[in-house]
Each structure stands twice: as structure tokens, then as C-alpha cells.
């Protein structure tokens, strides 16, 4: 069974927004619906200024608050770690949105809170998620930890890693390189 994770290095991100729109066209989303966001922080005083741009999307938490609160089981976790929504079962209560610490969900035209799908139907065929392949700065690396050849092993070993809101113990599947700037 695959074990999908993503590595994101915000130190490389320049905020071009290509990931957002690549994902939107991949999934046929309307222009205002998006699965990934960029959190921009400017710090310091002129002329000592820094900016950090952190791409955020569904973290595919192993201990997913959204899944815990979903009354109908519409939100579920696949064995390979990907958290998905079965639109057939979703009553649209938005409890998952309230519970998600990462603001990862957006309501689609059907009233279903959708989110990044880790390109579930494509990665199983070995394809790379659209947000990853389009990124000119190689901010993102996607892979399968069960694949010994994956470059992720090296990356995760050699980098100072953090996870977003680790204090909430959601066990995200996205690992971030620690910010060198802020």
C-alpha cells in the first residue's frame, strides 16, 4: 500500500500562484474555488525586510479533525493516507470546515466542502500532482514513502522539518522545511 506525503519548502516559494491555477484546471474548478492558498507574511522594518510565503492546502491529516466530526462518514481516509470526500454522503453541514485547522476546505457548487485531493485518482498511476509539476521553484515534492527510490527519504532526513500546527496533533502528511527567514 502506498504511503503518500508531500514536502514543501516555503523558503523557495515566490508566490507565483501557478500551483493554485494548475490545480483548478486539473480539477475543473471555478475561478474562485481553490484548493491551495499562499500565506504571505512580511516582517521587519525598511530596509531590513523579509517575506515568507507558505503554500497551504489540505494536510491529509492522519488524525484528521474533519474526519472525526463528519457525521455521515462522507469524509474518509484511504489506506494510502489520502483524505477524500464522498459527495454522495455529504449533507453539507460544514462541520468539517469548522473543524479543519488549516482552512483547507471550500464549498463547491453542490454545497460540498471540497479540498485538495492529493490528486488521488492520478497519483495512483504514478502521475505527479498538477501543483507540484507546474512549480518553477520546485517548492513541492510529492511521493510515496513505501517507494524506496523516492527522493523524499533523503529530503525528509536531511531537512529541518516542521508541520503546521503540530500542537494540534493532527499528524499532517505535508512536511515543511523550517523557515530560514522568519
Amino acid at each position, binding site marked *: 500500500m502506498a504511503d503518500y506525503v508531500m514536502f514543501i519548502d516555503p523558503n523557495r516559494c515566490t508566490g*507565483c500562484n501557478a500551483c493554485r491555477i494548475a490545480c483548478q484546471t486539473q480539477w*475543473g474548478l471555478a*475561478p474562485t474555488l481553490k484548493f491551495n492558498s499562499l500565506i504571505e507574511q*512580511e516582517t521587519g*522594518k525598511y*530596509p531590513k525586510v523579509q*517575506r515568507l510565503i507558505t503554500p497551504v492546502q489540505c494536510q491529509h491529516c492522519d488524525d484528521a479533525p474533519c474526519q472525526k466530526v463528519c457525521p455521515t462518514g462522507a469524509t474518509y481516509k484511504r489506506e494510502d493516507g489520502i483524505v477524500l470526500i464522498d*459527495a454522495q454522503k455529504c449533507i453539507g453541514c460544514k462541520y468539517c470546515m469548522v473543524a479543519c485547522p488549516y482552512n483547507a476546505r471550500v464549498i463547491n457548487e453542490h454545497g460540498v466542502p471540497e479540498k485538495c485531493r492529493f490528486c488521488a*485518482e492520478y497519483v495512483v498511476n504514478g502521475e505527479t500532482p498538477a501543483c507540484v509539476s507546474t512549480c518553477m521553484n520546485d517548492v513541492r515534492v510529492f511521493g510515496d514513502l513505501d517507494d524506496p527510490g523516492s527522493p523524499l527519504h533523503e529530503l525528509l532526513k536531511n531537512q529541518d522539518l516542521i508541520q503546521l500546527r503540530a500542537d494540534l496533533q493532527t499528524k499532517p502528511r505535508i512536511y515543511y522545511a523550517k523557515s530560514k527567514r522568519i
Partner: protein
Amino acid sequence: LPQALKMDFQAFAEEAKHAEVTRVPSLCNGCSSYCGVWAYVKNGRLWKIEGNDIHMKSRGHICARGHGIAQNVYNPGRVTQPMKRVDNKNNFQPITWEEAFQEVGAKMKAIVEEHGGDKMVWACHGGKESYAQQFMDIIGSSTYITHYATCFSAKTNIWQNMVGGMFNPDFDQAKTMLFVGRNYAGGIIPAAMKRITEAKAKGGKIIVVDPRFCELATIADEWIPIRPGTDLAFFLGIAHTLITENLYNQSFVEQYVYGFDEFWMHNKDFSADQAATICGIAADKIREVARELAGSAPHAFLDPGYHGLAAHYQNSNETMMLNIIINALLGNFWKAGGLFPAASTTFGHPEATYYGPVAAKGIRADGAGEVGEYPLVEPSRGIPQRIPDMIEKGRARMVFFYSYNPLRSAPEPEYQKKIKNADLVVSIPYDWNETSLYTAHYILPENHYLERTEHPKVINGNIYWPATQVATRFKALESTTSSLDLLDIMKGLTKAYGIENLYGYTVEEELEVALGPIGVSVDELREKGCIELMPSVLPKEEGLTFGTFTGKIEFSIGAWRKEGYLGVPTWVPPLVEPAEVNQFRLIHGKQPWHSHIMTTNNPYLMAITEEKKGTYMWMNSSRAGELGIQEGDWVTVSSDITSKQVQVHITEGLHPECVWLPSTYGTFSEKLELGYGQGVNYNDFIPARIDKKTGHVMGQECIVTITKGGK
């Protein structure tokens, strides 16, 4: 409506798997990079695009604009069939292609017969050829104008004069990269950014000099805010340091530089200390940067730049000269991690099918390269911002605009609107851009790029790549409107004009003939999308020659001396300076998710603008504090020629002396509903001026007065 919205995602993905998805290679038309893309087409509709891994500008990566522009096939702002102006109030009436050809062709004929063929102006974005040249050769027109004077003509002109052509940076091997007024992360070439971030990961150092904390600064080792318009002083300070501290590559200079002594004679007193008083960067910092560069040389470069400084100031020409001089002092030409010329190749041409009479060429209507007018301006590029002037003086009577929108991309739109006074104005756009709406008598829409097959292009320029690449567009989608390919439009027009068989080939035939000499078949190109030839530009130690008169890099420009100027650069101040407490220099720049001025009607890209408050004008927080301006406040911005309202973004990341505008907004074509009236544009505020030597627009010689309120 996107398909996925109508069903759930699993069904969508299933369908994608089972529906027939074809993959067609093309070249993005979002900007001059022409990145290689794969268009995925499902049930006859565009699904998405992906980058072509081979293409040297994209290396598999596509920027936000690329994704957005592909979806423009379905943009409601497209012109869907030929249009004819019916009144002075921008009302048009649809006509058939046959009517359009007959009417336009007849008018062309009448104008040429009465006034001569040299009264025709062809103005286009330019770059990768069009079919117009062949027709202009026959009727005797020289005035083929491109957009370059609004983009970077100071750079290309100076490089041609001093070096004999452009050189481009090799990021991969660089140890120190100095970017001054060049923001690769905002003025994007995807593969360049990929290589810059990779070089950084390998230990390369990035220094960004920009009045604004630009996107590239976010990943830089150092951001040095400079007083806008004073880069020339900063460069002179660096050159002075390199020379006085003996840090420059003397043997390179001895072998390959002409005019060093002349340069030094005029600049030996311009020290880093003097530079510091002008550019606001501490003398020690200037020296530190010079030493840092010299320490890494020749694996170091000062990026030659693109738009950022090359059409902006009275001193842009000299600034570009210093760019070359600093790189030459570092001795980095033809060195790994330094600068290289572009690899190139030549295509075959279809045999000529026209053997009729040919008129003698007239002078250029814009005076570019003409004695007594603008002798130093490159005639191959021209002076697009003065088309109204040429019309007023009777030097231009029929003007064609192809894929070009000077009403929004050139200065002073109110002045540009006079273009409609010409006897005949024809625009060949794909959408309802301002030039078409306000000036054209006829609009002849071209197909979207995904709807056309084209003759091949050499992929090179701006960034170093050792091998030539060849690529083209293959038709991925059936046209959804009744627009045509340019070749078919030109065939129709010239035939109606009375030349039967000027373009006696189909584009497929042309493609095959073009590829012949380089031994590539059309099928192979279609299969790979982009073909790389053998590497031909590799590091060289010895025997360098440059395409100048002396075969060396010339620090003193002969053509300038001939015109009575000093041949070497010396300090030239900016033309205008802010003086009052509420005055600022208006500067501008690219936003990563918009292209020039042509993406403001794209719903995906505008959704990003909406979310990021992308139309806001940046202002330094301390200046804003003094004026009592807060984030999101409306202000009135006034220059000599106009006054407009815009909202303000307060930041620490901007030099206090200027305000910064994203250069994309201020769309004023009502037919582009999404973009219409969003934000303002720097071109609103500047008069249509011409730099004497290289013809550029001096786009940042603009002081604005800012007062709170207004909306």
C-alpha cells in the same frame, strides 16, 4: 462552466480516464517566452495544459498566466468574427470574412495608389516573424514596428552596439548572481527561476537591487533597496571599485575590450563614495558587492536585465552600458556561470510564388535609423509610441496592428486614441483590446493560439542554453469562433488587394520546408513538442570574437561619437525628481500572475487579483504615515497629464521615494468586462516621449502628487 462542477470528482477523474484525452504540443502565448506546453483535450474541449520538459524556457513548468491564457479559448472577451466600425462611439457591426477582405483590400489599394506604399505601418508585438514583411517589401514600406521601445530597446540597442548582440546568464554554474531591476520571479521565465533556485541550493549567492522588495528578493541572500533611477551611479561605483582595487580581469580587458582607457578617463573620479550620495546605498556596501562579484568571477554575473531598467529613465542607455562594462570587467563572457550568446539555427523557406513588380522602399515613418531624425534607434524595432504623430504628419495613412495593443501598452492613451484618424486602421487581435475598440476601422480576429498550427520557432534568448531548440504550435482545438489564422487573413487581404499568390503554401507545407535543413520531421516535432539540436554554445577560454567593428567589446560606442555624443557613459541624472512631501516617483513592475496588459479579462487570474488585492499601489509605510494614509485607503494620484484614484497597500518593502504600481491594470475597453475599470496603469500618467538615442519611452520619468481620498 468547467465540467467538474457538474459532477463529483471521482466521476470527473473516471471520465478523464475513459474519455479520449489527446495531448497536443503547442507554445504558450502568454509572453515572449513562448513556453512549450502540452494541451490536453477531452471531448473536443480544452482540459488543461502542462509544461514541456524539454523546452528551455519552461523545463516542464508553466506559470499561472500560462494556465490562465490557455483557458482564454473560452473567454467572453474574444472577438468572434470580423467587425466593421459603424460610428465614432466604438460601435461595430459584424461582417463576413469575404466582405472584410474586399473592403479592406480595396481601401489598401486606393491608399497605396494615391499616397504610396511607404505610408503603410505594420505594428506588432513582434519577435517571431509575421507574414506582413513580404507584402511590405512589395509595396515599399519600411515601417515595421514592434513593441520593443516600450519594453527594452535601451538594452538590445546598446548590446548590439557594444557587444554585437545579446549575451545571457548561465545560472547553473554561477557563484554570485547580481540582479538589478530584474525580477525573474515576477517577470517570469519559469526555467530561469528553476535554475536560480537550484543554483542557490548549491550555494550560489543571490543579490537583488530593487527599490521594491520584489518576488525575487524573497529568496535572495540580500535585498538592497536603491533610490529609483540611480542604478547608473551604483554601477559606476562598482566599476570604480573593481578598477581601483584591481579586482577586474585585466587580461580579459586587454584582449577583448576596446575603449577601456577612454571610459576610465571620464570616470576615474566617480568613486563608490560619490555613488553612495546619489543612489543611497552605503559606499561600503557598494564596495562589498563589487568584491563579492570579483571574488566569484568569472562564475558571477550582473544580469543583463529585461524590461526593469531598459525603457525607464533618461539614463537607461548609460545604465545598460555599465551593465556590459561590469560584466566585461569580471571577464565572464563565454565562461561557465557567466554570460553566453544564444544558440541559433536557420530554417528553410518556401519558394517564392510572387514574381511581380516591387516598389522602392520609402523612409521609415517613425524616423528610426533615419538621418536627422532618430539615427541611433534600431530600425528593426522602431518607435511605436509616436504612431499618432506619424499619422498627423501624413507619414502614415494605413496602420495595421497585429497582436499588439499600444493604447494600453504605450504611454498616454488619450494621445494614442488619435490613431483612429488614419485613413485605414486594421487590428488583428484575438480579443477586444483597447486599440481595436478605440481606433480600428476593421477588426479581423485571429484564432487563439491553441487553435492554430504555425511555422516553427527557434527557442532561445534571455537565458543561456547551450543548444538550439526548435518548437512550434500544433492545432489542438477546433476554432469555436469564426476567427482565422494569420496566414489565412494575409492571404485574404493580399488577394483582395490584387496580389494573387503571395503566400502560395499552407502552413503545414511551410512547416515541412522550414524544418528541412535541420533534419527534423514534422511528425517528430509533433511527437516531442520541442526538439533540441546539438549543443553549440559551450564555455570558451581562448579566441573570443564579438560582432562589433573592432571584434571586441566596445566601451565607447562609435555610432554615438559619430552623432556628436561622448562614446563612453558618464553619470546622467534622472530627468525628473520628486520635490514636495506628497510627491513620489511612480515606478512599476510585473505581477507574477498577469501578463503585461492582456490578462485582466481572465477569470482565474482576476480571482487571484481579487484575493490578493492585486490592484493596490504600494507605498512605504513611513511615507504613508506622514500623509495619514492607511492600508486600503483610496488616494488620488496626479501627474502632469492625468489624475486617477487607486487603493494603497502599505509596506516596509519599498523605497520611500517612490510608489509602485503593478503594470497590468487599468483596462479601459468596456468589452473586457472583468478587467474593465480595475486599477490604474502607469501609462496613464506619462507623456509619450522618445529617448533620443534608443527610442524608448522613459516609462519611469514620472513624478506624481498623492493626496488622500478621492473615492
